[in-house]
Each structure stands twice: as structure tokens, then as C-alpha cells.
């Protein structure tokens, strides 16, 4: 499930803590200019801390179905598109 500039991590329906582990794995495959789009049923507060530690920026919003959508990109990547929705 990869677009050219977006890696989709659909972690809806996974028991905690798997979503967190999947995002961490996905970070290792993130290339320059790419974004991770994470879909979840809840807001992942602990994830924000891990992302900040590793130098990633995130933007969170709720979509119309009530899912949390978290866009993640490297905060040191000048070529990454700004996280917007």
C-alpha cells in the first residue's frame, strides 16, 4: 500500500500496542519527501512523544467517519510537502 510520496499505515482494528510498532517500522522505510498516513480509532498520545524524540513532525485530524488521521514526515526534510488536510 504505497503511493509515490505516501506510505499508508492502516492500524484500525489492531490491538494496542501493534499500531505503535507498525509506525516505528514504517519510519525506517520513509524516504526523502515521503509522508506516512496513519489511520487509527483513537488518538495516539504516546506516539507523539516518540516522533518528537526522533525528529518527525505530525499533524492530526479527525475525518468524517471519526477516524484519527495522523500525517507524519521528517521535520528535517526540506523536500517533504507540508502536512496539510
Amino acid at each position: 500500500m504505497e503511493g509515490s510520496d505516501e506510505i499508508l499505515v492502516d492500524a484500525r482494528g489492531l490491538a494496542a500496542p501493534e499500531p505503535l510498532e507498525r509506525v516505528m517500522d514504517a519510519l525506517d522505510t520513509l524516504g526523502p519527501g515521503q509522508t506516512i498516513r496513519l489511520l487509527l480509532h483513537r488518538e495516539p498520545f504516546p506516539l507523539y512523544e516518540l516522533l518528537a524524540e526522533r525528529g518527525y513532525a505530525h499533524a492530526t485530524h479527525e475525518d468524517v467517519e471519526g477516524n484519527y488521521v495522523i500525517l507524519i514526515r521528517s521535520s528535517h526534510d526540506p523536500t517533504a510537502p507540508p502536512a496539510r488536510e
Partner: protein
Amino acid sequence: MSLQAGLSFDQAPPFTLPLRFFLTAPLFLLLAAALIVAAPDALAARSTPHAFALTHALTLGFLAMTMLGALTQMLPVVAGAKVPRPRLVAWLVHLPLVVGTLALMAGFLTAAPVAFGIAVGLLGFGLVVFLLAASVSLARAAHSATVGGMRLAALGLALTVVLGGALALLRMGWWTLPGVPTVVTAHIAFGLLGWVLLLVIGVAYQVVPMFQMTPPYPPALRRWLGGILFALLLLYAVAPTVLPVAASAAAIGVAGVITLFALITLRLQAKRRRKLPDVTLAYWRVGMASLIACVAVWLGARLAPDWRASDAYPMLLGILFIAGFAVSVVSGMLYKIVPFLAWFHLQAQLQARAGSIPTMKEMIGERWMRAQFYLHLLACSLLLVAAVRAEWTPAAGVALAASALLLWLNLLAAVRRFWRHGGRFL
């Protein structure tokens, strides 16, 4: 919509901070077991010095110890609200709770006023510090059913502490209190139902769907159940002096709330989306079954006054609630929280690449958790037998000791893996 770009976060409190609570708690379980082995009358009747010491080793030393440690962690996770000055709070809560609980146990066993004095001072101080810190955090938290449940549970704990303090001063001979039995009843009701049960209910709304992939609790139940339970407890506590018939009605209401929560939880767990065996799930199921058994025993006592007046009845009720329900649910949660924290702090400290650190599931061996769960079941069963047949008391104590020791070793295994993979305890 929030956007944070690499700004320096308040760092997560260090691993050692909640860990000190989690690694102390099983030792109090072990101490409780030692007391049962050493004092055969510990399970004989509710109001012996040994029974009081045993009860507080379990409720303060194991349950409160774990719950306070978990809350300092859970609040940021479920509500995004941090506890202020976490390092200082941990020191000011953990040590007084340890020494205060030991002093209180010594007070019950020796009747020495000085021990009660130390206990009141230290437990009062530690628990008030915790309540103040939790209040700041809960006031900041976005409202949810879980946060609402935690707020009421904190109020339940505050009432328990005040009533307990009054009873301890009474034992020191500082004053005489009118209506002591009423105060004792209220202390027990708020401690076990207004604090322990309410907190479990509030936390269940989050952790049961999150860890066990069940459907969510019904919204109406989430909105009302905690508030109704707390209102019923208030009525139950004040009614005996005002309107005795209302106390009976309140007790029936509380029994109804407990049954409803347990049955709905079991039903949600039966509908979980992935049927993988899980020790935490097994522990929760035992906990819910014990709650239902509590209500059945309580109803039986309503129908048989002779049985209600026996020494065995309150002991059975206490064992079912404290060991069967509360210790089970808390043990199950420890097996989620400690591996999670070990993984989280490793991940944060090492910024590890995928596959270079253990996953959360690998932090504690599944077989060893399962073995510890069966030991706990054995201990609960023997405790129930011992409440009726005293000759089984030492065996129950030994089983509880084995279960406590293995719980402790299992938690230590996660800490050892954290350390081996380069985790630091800063």
C-alpha cells in the same frame, strides 16, 4: 488539527518513575502471603488484628501502589494530560506509601499508638500529594468517560483516606468517635467500591477495547454508570444514621451496577475481533466472574441471616473482591503496562531500527505469565476454602506467596530485557 515539528516535548517521565511502584507492589503481596502463613487466624474473622494488617497490605501495598503508579502513566496516555512535576511526585508518594503501609500493619499487629501515628502522617502526606497532582492533571484533561470515572475515583480515595485517618486516630486514643461502625462501613465502601471499582470501570472503557479489540462499551453506560455508583455509595454511607431503609435500597442498587458492569464486560470480551489467547484477558475474565460471585454471596446472605452473621461470610466477600477481582485485574494490567513502558523507553532512548529491539510481546515470556496466572487462580481458590476451613490457611498462604514471587520475577524479566538492550534508567 495540531502540528508539532520537532519541538522539545516534555519528555516522558523516566522508566524508573512508575517502575518503582510496580516492582514494590508484588513484594507487599508476598508480605500478605507471609502474614497468612505465620498467622493462621488471619482468615478466621474480619476484625482480628491480623485480618486488618492483611487487608491493608493488599489494598494499600499492592492495589494502591500499582494504581497510583499506573495513573501517573495512564493520564498522559489516555487523556493527554501530564502529571505536574512527575519526578518529585513519585518520590513524595512512593516512599511514604511504602513506609506508611508497613507502619499501619505494625500498628494493627502491635496496637502501638506510635505506629498508627507514623502511618497516619506518612499515608496522609503521600496520598494527599498524589491527590493534588492527580487533580491538576484531571482538571487539564479533556473530558471523557474515563476521565470522569477517574475524577470520581480520586474523590472516593480522598474520602477513604479521611475516614481511615479518623479511625486510626481513634485507635491511638486521641478521640472517641460517635457511630464508629458507620464510619468503618463507609471507609470500606469508598475504599473498595468508590476508589478501586470506580477506577477499574473508568479505565476499562479505554483498555478493554484497546487491548482486547472488543466493541466499545455502550455510550449510555459510559455516561451514567460511574456517577450512579458514586451517588449510591454516598447514600449508602449516610443513610444508616438518617434513613436505614435507604441504605438497603442503595446496597441493592450497587449490586445491580456491579452485575451490569461485569456482565457487559464479559459480553464485550466474548465479541472480541481477534480470538488470540491472552493472559490479561484471562485475568479480566476471572475478575469479572469474581464480581458476579461477590453479588451472589451478598444476595445469599440477605436470604440467610444466620449465614450473614457468620465469620466466614465477610471473609468470603473480601477474598472474592480483593483477591478475585481487584488483584486479578491489576495483575492483568501490569502485564500490559510494564512491557509497554520497557519497549517505549527503549524505543525513545535508542531510536532503534525495526527488529533491533524486542517487541512488547517478547518482553515477558508468555508461558511464565500463564504459569503465574494459574498460581493466582490456585491461591484464590485456596483462600476461599480457608475462609470456611481454617486448616487450609497455610496452603493458601504458600500459593499466594508463589504467585506473588512469580509476578515479581516476570516484571523483572521485562526490566532485564530493557537493560540488556541498552536501556538506561535515567
